[in-house]
Structures are given as structure tokens and as C-alpha cells.
């Protein structure tokens, strides 16, 4: 089956979510990939949304973090304070699944401002739940489309920490979680290099060249010694994804937002 680069990105991200894992899900691309995982390879994945649903099993993608569908299909709905206090800070989240406006080579995330904080060129929505998800989840996956504007050499603002300045930064900061273990884009998969914790390309999606990745990265991106090729989306994966998107469009009258 023919597929788009966005579909490849979502499928590649969904494959990273293991069955039985407990996943704290951001809205937009992470929510799409997490639900695709639940509908394909990982039916027992537990999806937690910051608005309060635990074990949500939506049949259509939510447009907002607090859609009624999430509450109706959840095992339980708890207050937002409890989500952050008992479930995230309490150490019960295996994977934090985040989007971003910008990332750097250490997987640090900016969702706050472009330009100076006090005189911003672009004011972004802000932190939401991400800083503490990035800190406290046992591991973090990041999904976003790749371009030189989103993969930058230096972030104007670190909203949510990844591997900080690299090396043993996270240990020195006393962060409980292991931090980002993968960045999944429409071109490739990056993983932190052992020791430096700098993200390097470990897999290219089919048909993508190294030159394309270099051109779409704002720092001097490096490639791992062994770079694999991502397996193409299977018919099962693509059908599940397209059905999910069709159900979502029919229910909402619009595609799910990426915001």
C-alpha cells in the first residue's frame, strides 16, 4: 500500500509503545500514535490523559485533552491534581509521549516562546503538563515533523528538559526518569548516543536520504554507526490508522488538531 510520510511517522511512533506499558499521552500527534498502538500491536497499553481519564480507549481521536469520549471509555476518571500527584509524580508512568514545537540535539523541548521571553517573536501555548512528564516518566518519546525550524541548534527556551546539556546532566539534576529515548519524525528515528546523550539518527524511513535529514536539522546531525531502514507500514497498520482518522473526521466534522 502507498503511504504518506506523516503516516510513516505515526506508525513508527506507535510501534515504540510496548503492550502493557502505562503511557501519559499528549494531545495531537502523540495521542494519534498512542491510540494506533492500542488498536494494533499493543491492545493492553494503558493511556492516561492529563485531564483525568486513566485507561482511556477512545474509538475516535479527541480534539481536546478533555473530550467526553476519553472519560466515557476510561477505567476511571480522577481529578487533574490527582493525575499529576499520584500517577505521574508517584512514579506510575512508563512512557511519557510528547509533541513539541522545537527540540534540540539533547531532546530538550520548547513549547513556550520563539525569541526573547519578554519580547517574544512568537508566543507559544506554554508548558502544560510536559515539564513534569519529561522529568518523572520512566522514559519519554517525542514525535514531531522534522524541519530546520523545529530541530534547532539552540532553543530560545527550555520548557521541558530532555538530556539537558548532555552526558550525565539528568543525573546531576536529580531527575527520576531516564528522559527521552526516541524522537520519531516524518523522516527518521533518532536515539540518544550512549555517553553523550546526543540524539543521532538510528533509522531512516524508506526512501529518505541522509541529505534530506541533514537539510531538515538545524544542528550538525550525526548518524549512528549502524543506520537501519524503518520497516514500511503494513496493510494492517495503515488500515487501522485510516479507519481511525475516518471515524474521527465523521464524529467531529474535522481532522484532529495537532495543537
Amino acid at each position: 500500500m502507498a503511504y504518506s510520510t506523516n503516516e510513516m511517522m505515526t506508525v513508527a511512533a506507535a510501534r515504540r509503545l510496548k503492550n502493557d506499558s502505562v503511557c501519559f499521552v499528549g494531545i495531537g500527534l502523540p495521542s494519534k500514535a498512542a491510540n494506533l498502538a492500542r488498536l494494533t500491536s499493543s491492545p493492553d497499553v494503558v493511556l492516561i490523559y492529563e485531564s483525568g481519564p486513566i485507561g482511556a480507549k477512545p474509538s475516535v481521536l479527541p480534539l481536546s485533552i478533555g473530550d467526553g469520549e476519553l472519560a466515557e471509555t476510561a477505567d476511571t476518571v480522577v481529578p487533574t491534581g490527582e493525575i499529576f500527584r499520584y500517577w505521574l509524580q508517584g512514579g506510575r508512568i512508563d512512557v511519557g509521549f510528547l509533541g513539541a514545537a522545537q527540540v534540540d540535539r539533547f531532546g530538550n523541548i520548547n513549547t513556550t516562546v520563539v525569541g526573547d521571553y519578554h519580547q517574544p517573536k512568537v508566543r507559544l501555548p506554554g508548558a502544560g503538563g510536559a515539564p513534569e512528564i519529561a522529568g518523572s516518566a520512566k522514559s519519554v518519546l517525542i514525535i514531531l515533523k522534522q524541519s530546520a525550524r523545529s530541530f534547532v541548534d539552540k532553543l530560545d527556551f527550555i520548557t521541558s528538559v530532555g538530556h539537558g546539556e548532555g552526558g550525565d546532566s539528568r543525573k546531576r539534576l536529580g531527575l527520576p526518569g531516564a528522559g527521552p529515548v526516541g524522537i520519531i519524525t516524518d523522516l527518521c528515528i533518532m536515539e540518544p548516543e550512549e555517553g553523550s546523550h546526543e540524539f543521532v539518527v538510528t533509522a531512516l524511513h524508506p526512501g529518505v536520504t541522509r541529505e534530506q535529514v541533514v537539510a531538515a536539522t538545524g544542528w550538525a546531525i550525526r548518524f549512528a554507526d549502524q543506520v537501519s531502514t524503518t520497516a514500511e507500514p503494513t496493510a494492517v497498520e495503515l488500515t487501522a490508522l485510516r479507519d481511525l482518522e475516518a471515524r474521527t473526521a465523521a464524529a467531529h466534522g474535522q481532522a484532529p488538531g495537532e495543537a
Partner: protein
Amino acid sequence: MAEILALRDAVKRFVNDGDTVALEGFTHLIPTAAGHEIIRQGKKDLTLVRMTPDLIYDQLIGAGCARKLIFSWGGNPGVGSLHRLRDAVEKHWPQPLEIEEHSHADLANAYVAGASGLPFAVLRAYAGSDLPKVNPLIKTVTCPFTGEVLAAVPSVRPDVSVIHAQKADRKGNVLLWGILGVQKEAALAAKRCIVTVEEIVDDLNAPMNSCVLPTWALTAVCHVPGGAHPSYAHGYNQRDNRFYQAWDPIARDRGTFTAWIDEYIHGTADFSEFQAKLAAAQEAK
């Protein structure tokens, strides 16, 4: 005991210029009607608090009601930016807006602390983030037992909190369900609390352990069916996703925004008139 009042009277009596006001709602149960009434009555110099400011805060900010915003995520969910918030921050229109920015975990804990009568909240947060560099209220505290350094943030204690809920009884006891956000904490953290409800009934028939706010913990209860639109009240109405999309072009431009506020808020006497006007406009399309 909460008084059962018209929303107009509740806002007139309990929301003052210069107050710190939290209109809470986490996508669900957003108290839009109360926000409109605050604009209609021209309240000003408000410090607005909310984890997730969305359209109603865009309207309050663009209409010039706010001096300061305390928040953790400001956007139009599933659509994009809040253009009035951005214009106020980036270009100081219609007036400068001071912002005090936190994370969700921080503000959720800060509401819990407020409801608990504590001066600050403690949480494991912000290590490695730049937010403490731009918000001097984010400090640290050392655990006296383990030596762990944790984040300390001031509790949220609004002058008035406003929430929307499904039901009240005739005494003013309030029942809400579905996605609860931080509404219970916001209600109990505030000096005064106004609740708008979908309906007022003889008996709440609340199952044990339900989220019930007792009348004696509230200030005013107002009957405003559909008062969370374009948000929703679980079991009563659906989220109006199209309005969230329609808001984007209205708010993008100062002129179209001001015309919208003049026509739909200042040009209507109350929320039911607003709803009728909006329905007529949507039908004409």
C-alpha cells in the same frame, strides 16, 4: 449557604474590579456564560487564573478586563493560538498583560494547597526547565527528612472562583461529574465561589463518593443551561467543535474581534439572548 441568584446579580455582587478570579474548567464545564457577564459588566484590572485559558479568556483579555494572567497552557485546543492573548503579550493590545507562567503540575498542586489552607505547594518539578528563570515565584525547598530539593510554589487563593456544573438542588448543593479538572480545588481555594448549573432539581440523587460541593461551601448558584458553550456539560450537551474553529478568524483581527464583542456580548442582555443570537447567525449561514 449559597444564594440562588441570577448570574447578572452574582457577578455584580461577587466579582470586583481588581479581583483575582479563577474561571476553571479543563476543556469540560468551562464557565463561558459567567465570563461573558464579566465582560458585559465591564469589570477591569482582573488577575485571571486558569490552567488552560482558552476562548473565554481570549475574550476577557481582548475586551480589556485583565491586568494579569496566571496560567500553564494557553491555546485554542485542536485549533491553534489564542490571538487575543498573543496580541496582548506581543503587542500590548488593548493594554499590557502581565503573565505569570507555571506548569500544569505546579498549578494543580497550587490549587490543592489553596484549598488546603496552605501558603505554598511542594512538588517534584522544574529541574532543568527555564520556567523558574522567568517566574521568580517558582522557588525550591529542601525536604527536612531526606534533603531532596523540591519545587515550592505559592498556593492559588482567588478572591472568587467560578465553575460550571451539571446540577444543583434547591438548597444550592452542587453535583458535577465527568472530567473534573481542578474545579473542586478552585471552589474551595477561593474566598467566594459562583457556580453556574445546567439544571436545578429537587434531589441530586448523588451516588456515594460523588463530587458534591455542599451549599455552605459556595457563595452563589445560578441556573444557566448551556452556560459552558462551546465547551460541554457531560450528559447535557456536546462540545461545539465548529465554534472553536470559527473563533480563530474572529480573534485573529482586532476589528473583527471588537465587532464580535460589541454585537454578541454588549449587544445581548444575558446568555440566553446570546445563545439565540448565535443560533440565528449559524442558521443564516
